[in-house]
């Protein structure tokens, strides 16, 4: 039986946890008499929540965002880190102690405090220490806030410190080390920051004494250790830093005894020792079939299909409940038809977000977007656009709709007429294909909606391929006089694509990447055929397809 390397274990763990949870919970409900069945099922639910909490808050969890929890160095080096500063009294004392021991450290500063004490930040750098950031304000809202809020909190602090040091800090410590889904969404929108947690912490943010801080850290002192301490007062922490200040000389002494040198994280970064652990549970990373013995592989596959099926079920049930319960309640609030449509659409985006979270929790699929923030959220867009995209997977519609604030989609008339899904799509302003399509789409654009159209009219044929483009999207943009934004969607490994049935979903997680490529502003009265062929050609180039592929022989 082949051994599982540490890299492959998370997926198997997750599988085992899910199987165990389902078996125990379901079995208990069926087999045990009341109230024992319910009690056991509740226990299982608690365990599952525990697992999620672990995924979000454990310093080593790579689940929602890749993090560095220790340096992969063979040299005898450790990194002391200080959060929540700079503080005019404590940080200055910490710097004095470090200087006396000729030790280097890293300070994850808060943007607002750095702005109050820029001289301290400059002193930190001047004495050879590393400066990282720890958000602008360190508020509880950071853990639950919108992607935009999280991004602002991170970027504001980077801007403040970058302004003081004339060099942008590249290291970031998430508050409390928590990487919630909310955090991960916002963090992905920021510029390449390395997320650093810790391998040991003194828990000195709350009231404690130096002995305990030293005891907690000392047993973890080993090459590559990253130690979290505090030189400022964080959210919900005590203002008394005397334990930290008393513990620090003893810790430095302990390092010296063990022959460990205290270095700043930037020297480890230059050494290439700050590498996130194996991230997400992706199929390329986990050639599962080669690793898992056959006996485990096929049950795993079967379970996987069941998970995909449960997502389909959740999607359709969710759509029906949302259409017949959620939307009627929403409609009770007053407003013009356009306002109501925007409101419904906003609610739909939230539902899609929840749906994506579900697929992500099941390790099935996640979306990634560096640049989707190009269109800001909230109010109706003042300058609506036609969004065109290739269509590699079924999941991309929900992804694009939930990433862009005001997008309605052109949908096949059969779906809009579908008794389960139709009502929902009609209320949210989706446009069916048919004789009135052009008119309706132009109308939506006038109302301030972006209109998403897949010019292929169906899903792209195979990974990276394209069908012939139809010119409707371009005709609409020309008639409405709005720009066209090209989106490039890539789904790797392919999942729920045209030629891939549900049960052939990949072993690992499929990642959908949404990339905003460029904006084309068509001239009034321009010929949509020419424009369509030009954009089609552009997509062939962008997707790296051979330029003389059959689609280009299509006469103009």
């Amino acid at each position, binding site marked *: 039986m082949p051994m599982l390397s540490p890299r492959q274990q998370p997926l198997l763990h997750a599988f085992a946890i899910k199987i165990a949870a389902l078996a125990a919970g379901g079995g208990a409900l069926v087999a045990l008499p009341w109230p024992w069945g319910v009690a056991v099922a509740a226990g299982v639910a608690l365990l599952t929540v525990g697992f999620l909490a672990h995924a979000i808050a454990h310093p080593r969890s790579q689940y929602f965002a890749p993090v560095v929890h220790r340096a992969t160095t063979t040299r005898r080096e450790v990194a002391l880190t200080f959060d929540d500063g700079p503080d005019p009294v404590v940080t200055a004392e910490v710097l004095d102690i470090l200087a006396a021991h000729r030790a280097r450290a890293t300070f994850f500063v808060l943007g607002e405090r750095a702005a109050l004490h820029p001289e301290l930040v400059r002193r930190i750098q001047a004495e050879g220490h590393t400066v990282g950031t720890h958000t602008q304000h360190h508020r509880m809202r950071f853990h639950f806030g919108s992607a935009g809020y999280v991004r602002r909190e991170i970027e504001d602090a980077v801007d403040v410190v970058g302004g003081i040091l004339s060099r942008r800090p590249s290291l970031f410590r998430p508050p409390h080390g928590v990487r919630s889904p909310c955090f991960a969404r916002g963090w992905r929108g920021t510029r390449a920051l390395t997320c650093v947690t810790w391998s040991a912490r003194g828990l000195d943010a709350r009231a404690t004494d130096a002995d305990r801080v030293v005891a907690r850290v000392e047993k973890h002192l080993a090459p590559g250790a990253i130690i979290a301490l505090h030189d400022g007062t964080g959210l919900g922490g005590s203002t008394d830093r005397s334990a930290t200040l008393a513990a620090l000389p003893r810790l430095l002494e302990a390092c010296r005894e063990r022959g460990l040198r205290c270095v700043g994280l930037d020297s480890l970064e230059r050494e290439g020792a700050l590498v996130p652990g194996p991230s997400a549970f992706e199929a390329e990373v986990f050639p599962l079939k080669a690793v898992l013995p056959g006996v485990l592989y096929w049950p795993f596959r079967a379970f996987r299909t069941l998970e995909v099926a449960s997502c389909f079920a959740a999607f359709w049930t969710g759509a029906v409940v949302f259409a017949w319960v959620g939307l009627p309640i929403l409609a009770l609030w007053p407003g013009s038809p356009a306002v109501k449509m925007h409101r419904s659409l906003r609610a739909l985006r939230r539902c899609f977000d929840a749906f994506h979270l579900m697929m992500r929790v099941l390790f099935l699929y996640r979306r990634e977007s560096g640049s989707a923030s190009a269109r800001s959220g909230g109010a109706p867009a003042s300058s609506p656009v036609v969004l065109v995209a290739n269509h590699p997977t079924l999941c991309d519609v929900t992804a694009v709709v939930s990433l862009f604030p005001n997008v309605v989609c052109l949908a096949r*008339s059969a779906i809009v007429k579908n008794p389960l899904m139709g009502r929902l799509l009609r209320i949210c302003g989706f446009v069916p294909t*048919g*004789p009135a*399509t*052009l008119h309706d789409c132009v109308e939506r654009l006038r109302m301030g909606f972006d209109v998403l159209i897949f010019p292929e009219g169906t899903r792209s044929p195979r990974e990276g391929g394209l069908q012939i483009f*139809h*010119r*409707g999207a371009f005709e609409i943009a020309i008639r409405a006089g709005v720009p066209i934004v090209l989106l490039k969607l890539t789904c790797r490994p392919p999942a729920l694509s045209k030629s891939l049935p549900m049960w052939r979903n990949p072993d690992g997680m499929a990642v959908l990447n949404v990339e905003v490529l460029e904006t084309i502003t068509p001239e009034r009265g321009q010929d949509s055929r020419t424009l369509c062929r030009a954009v089609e050609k552009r997509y062939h180039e962008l997707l790296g397809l051979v330029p003389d592929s059959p689609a280009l022989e299509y006469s103009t």
Partner: protein
Amino acid sequence: MTTEENRTTLLREVKQLIVDALQLDDVQPDSIADDEPLFGTGLALDSIDALELAMAITRRYAVKMSQGEETRDAFRSVGHLVDYILLHAA
């Protein structure tokens, strides 16, 4: 005017209408055969053209062209279109 003459006139008119409505600058109306396929091969029109053509025909002949099997059939060729108009314009 006999039915046959009427049909010939209408054929010529519809061909002109196709060229005008769809701005097919490089196509002579007379070069379109009565049974030449309009979509896919032949003139190779697309769905947007179909919409425009349907609107033009509705305006000109007051014939309703809604979605459906019959309409789709009518768009097979100029001949089919004319038959459709003759049938519904009365």
